[in-house]
């Protein structure tokens, strides 16, 4: 295969392969494919700066969200508190290690790695440097994206509260409120970081 050269002004739709001249978008704009209707390209205002800010804030909130009590269950005078990671551990202890691992990966590890990767990708770029391993990190980031499931976890927690409400007393801990903020920050970080913006910057730096 030949190196593109003159092809860098073109862009193919990922969903139907239609070919376009790369549209010049003002920040905040997005372009749709006229053939299949999918979003062709999005241009966020200052994607790297925003993603960097949200990821740093998210990493700070990650600590209380994961180490403070998420909620506790009280029954007949006894109270059992738990953190997010407690669920995965309890499943592993009950002989359900693969399920525990999946829960841990989707609710703790993938969101943490996503935030860390965002930081490691954006911080050097913001400082005007291109580190040699950045492209690997971006690919890893893109692979990881579908596996962070904080928002789904929140709904799972809601259902757990309702389900146990009849049996005992469910109480929300500080970890739960930290988790809500973490969810918001992680969502914003992910929405800000457009891989395309990074690739273009890495391309220009070569």
């Amino acid at each position: 295969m030949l190196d593109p050269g003159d092809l860098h002004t073109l862009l193919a739709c990922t969903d139907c392969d239609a070919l376009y001249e790369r549209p010049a978008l003002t920040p905040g704009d997005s372009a749709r494919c006229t053939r299949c209707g999918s979003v062709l390209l999005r241009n966020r205002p200052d994607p790297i700066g925003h993603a960097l800010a949200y990821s740093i804030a998210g990493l700070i909130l990650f600590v209380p969200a994961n180490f403070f009590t998420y909620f506790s269950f009280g029954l007949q005078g006894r109270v059992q508190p738990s953190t997010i990671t407690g669920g995965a551990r309890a499943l592993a202890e009950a002989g359900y290690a693969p399920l525990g691992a999946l829960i841990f990966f989707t609710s703790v590890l993938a969101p943490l790695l996503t935030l860390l990767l965002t930081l490691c990708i954006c911080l050097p770029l913001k400082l005007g440097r291109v580190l040699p391993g950045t492209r690997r990190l971006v690919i890893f980031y893109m692979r990881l994206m579908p596996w962070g499931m904080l928002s789904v976890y929140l709904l799972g927690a809601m259902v757990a509260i309702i389900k146990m409400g009849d049996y005992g007393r469910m109480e929300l801990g500080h970890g739960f409120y930290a988790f809500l903020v973490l969810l918001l920050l992680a969502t914003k970080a992910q929405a800000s970081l457009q891989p395309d913006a990074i690739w273009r910057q890495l391309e220009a730096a070569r």
Partner: protein
Amino acid sequence: MTTAAQLGLVSCEGCRRLYRVAPISAGTQARCTLCGCALHARKPDSLRRTWALLIAALILYVPANAYPVMTIIFSGKGAPSTILGGVIELFDAGGWPIALLILFASVAVPLAKMVGLAFLALSVERRSQWNPRKRTRMYKIIAVIGRWSMIDMFMVSILVAIVHLGAIATVEPGLGAMAFAAVVVLTIFAAESFDPRLVWDSMEHDQ
């Protein structure tokens, strides 16, 4: 409308850089010079992989629904609960909004996902000419909603951790949870393997 493929171009799956197709020697793999991803005109073995993962998910969907996802034990008395049983219980306990949510996430989403992907794969195999825009949207929706089936699994993990009061009350995970989680993971991979551009390819060839 011109496509990249018609001009002999390949779009990199990682960074969307375009490359001209040129012959390469057997046993080698062309890679993107920017991001390092392997270059393919379409996702490799897309339909075969989608079918394989889909069939595996369908098989596991049976134990996922037949076995309990958890057993709630109160003062020695155990109440095993399956996915559908859990929905019915929620109708009684929390009213219909939350029950509908679970009915949607745990029953409708996995089913819609498997049936939808099978429909898309079949439509490509049969070179269907039916509305490709709608089929593309269908694919996008399938790819997005899959994760929501994990609600029940997170709920089970939380209950197993906090309802842990020895003889008074415990919640034990069930085999159904393991099978259900496997269904979710397999369908996420199945959706990722499917290439929506195939839908549009079969439109071109028949025109």
